[in-house]
């Protein structure tokens, strides 16, 4: 099945990198909204609805905190709503805070999608041919937080059975949770260094090794690469024109043909995913 997940890992890395760079540099609200939506749909196709909903609850609460924080600390803009300690809270800051919250949501969602589409073995696979050390380093970095999460979940389950949280005091329960979290963080750190040593002892970073080529560049990969190239060229040549600003007066949202190129590059994985699923559906019907 040839869907987005099965593209060459280097294409996936380029995709995530370009999406993050384009959205951060253009500050365009419609682009970030579409990118968030793309990531939610991709996450839904790789994960369960319950997991996605849990993630969304966390992201929405985080974004609300960001919006409140921005209203308190930013005071630029021409349309004051009210004054907080003699400093204006403006409509422009509200819009900017919403954009930033969406940007953070996009980062978090893309990390979630990355965990599903780019496991550490794929990252190592990409870098094996060029710089193995960097590959291992990246894989360990990306796996660091999920490792903590997995270990923490296991520990909590075990300790619950042992009666570690069996106290009426909420403080004691919080303290026990914090202790377990700290243990998991230190365990993950130790695990990372041990894994690095293990990989080195297996002579991973020596040259002249033969590697099994699991992934190849196919039509889907080329189509995604061409679109990403077009998006990069658009960003380089039209950055001044497309750049969105919020202060002092928010720029009016415009629909331009250049936006379409970027949007197409961002949502192309959805088409690939759909194509892959339709193909798989027909394969299954012939089985």
């Amino acid at each position: 099945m040839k869907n987005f997940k099965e593209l060459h890992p280097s294409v996936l890395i380029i995709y995530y990198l370009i999406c993050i760079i384009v959205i951060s540099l253009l500050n365009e609200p419609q682009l970030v909204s579409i990118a968030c939506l793309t990531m939610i749909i991709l996450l839904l196709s790789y994960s369960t609805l319950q997991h996605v909903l849990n993630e969304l609850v966390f992201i929405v609460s985080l974004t609300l905190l960001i919006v409140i924080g921005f209203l308190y600390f930013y005071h630029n803009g021409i349309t004051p709503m009210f004054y907080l300690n003699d400093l204006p809270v403006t409509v422009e800051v509200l819009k900017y805070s919403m954009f930033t919250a969406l940007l953070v949501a996009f980062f978090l969602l893309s990390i979630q999608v990355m965990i599903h589409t780019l496991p550490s073995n794929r990252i190592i696979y990409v870098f094996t041919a060029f710089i193995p050390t960097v590959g291992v380093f990246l894989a360990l970095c990306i796996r660091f937080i999920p490792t903590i999460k997995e270990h923490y979940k296991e520990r909590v389950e075990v300790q619950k059975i042992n009666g570690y949280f069996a106290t009426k005091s909420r403080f004691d329960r919080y303290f026990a949770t914090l202790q377990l979290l700290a243990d998991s963080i230190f365990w993950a750190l130790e695990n990372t260094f041990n894994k690095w040593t293990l990989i080195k002892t297996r002579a991973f970073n020596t040259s002249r090794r033969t590697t099994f080529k699991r992934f190849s560049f196919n039509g889907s990969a080329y189509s995604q690469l061409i679109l990403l190239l077009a998006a990069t060229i658009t960003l380089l040549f039209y950055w001044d024109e497309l750049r969105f600003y919020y202060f002092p007066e928010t720029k009016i949202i415009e629909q331009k043909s250049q936006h379409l190129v970027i949007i197409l590059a961002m949502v192309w994985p959805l088409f690939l995913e759909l194509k892959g699923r339709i193909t798989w559906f027909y394969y299954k019907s012939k089985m």
Partner: protein
Amino acid sequence: MKKDFLLVVCIALLIAIFFSGTKIQSVEQYESVTKDTITEETPIVYLSIDARSIKKNEKLLKPELLKYMPSDGVILKKTAYVLRKNDTAFDLLLRATRQNKIQMEYQGATDNSFNSVYVQGINYLYEFSAGSNSGWMYRVNESFPNKGISRYKLKEGDVVALQYTTNLGNDIGGRQ
């Protein structure tokens, strides 16, 4: 149970501290300020705000800010204000911007290591709006005081000027 009660008290205390230190005003409330009447006996000080340095380097300014730039670069002409007891240069600036409805954003004295207010932007012109060396500086009686704006106590007849620099003060006669 006792500890849970303690937690509730802690949260309530934090909320109380937050709201006791926060003053919320509507736009009308904020803008309704009474001007001091200047008579022959009242001590006066002067204030001006200008960004003339940008006029020489307009290319440095972000394009969206051009329309907020006065044609001669002067945001507030030299104006006389009544000197109140214990007035600092910042008090004067705050009063003047409020009376003239000029936008200003600043960082409070407790928020930085200089123990003084830091003026971030006036009339939508912010630090770094015209390059990495740009920002607001203040001078009193033609010299640049070596202390923060909210620590400079004013005396009668002082002439305060807020000036925008595009080159760390070198373009307006200040030291680097």
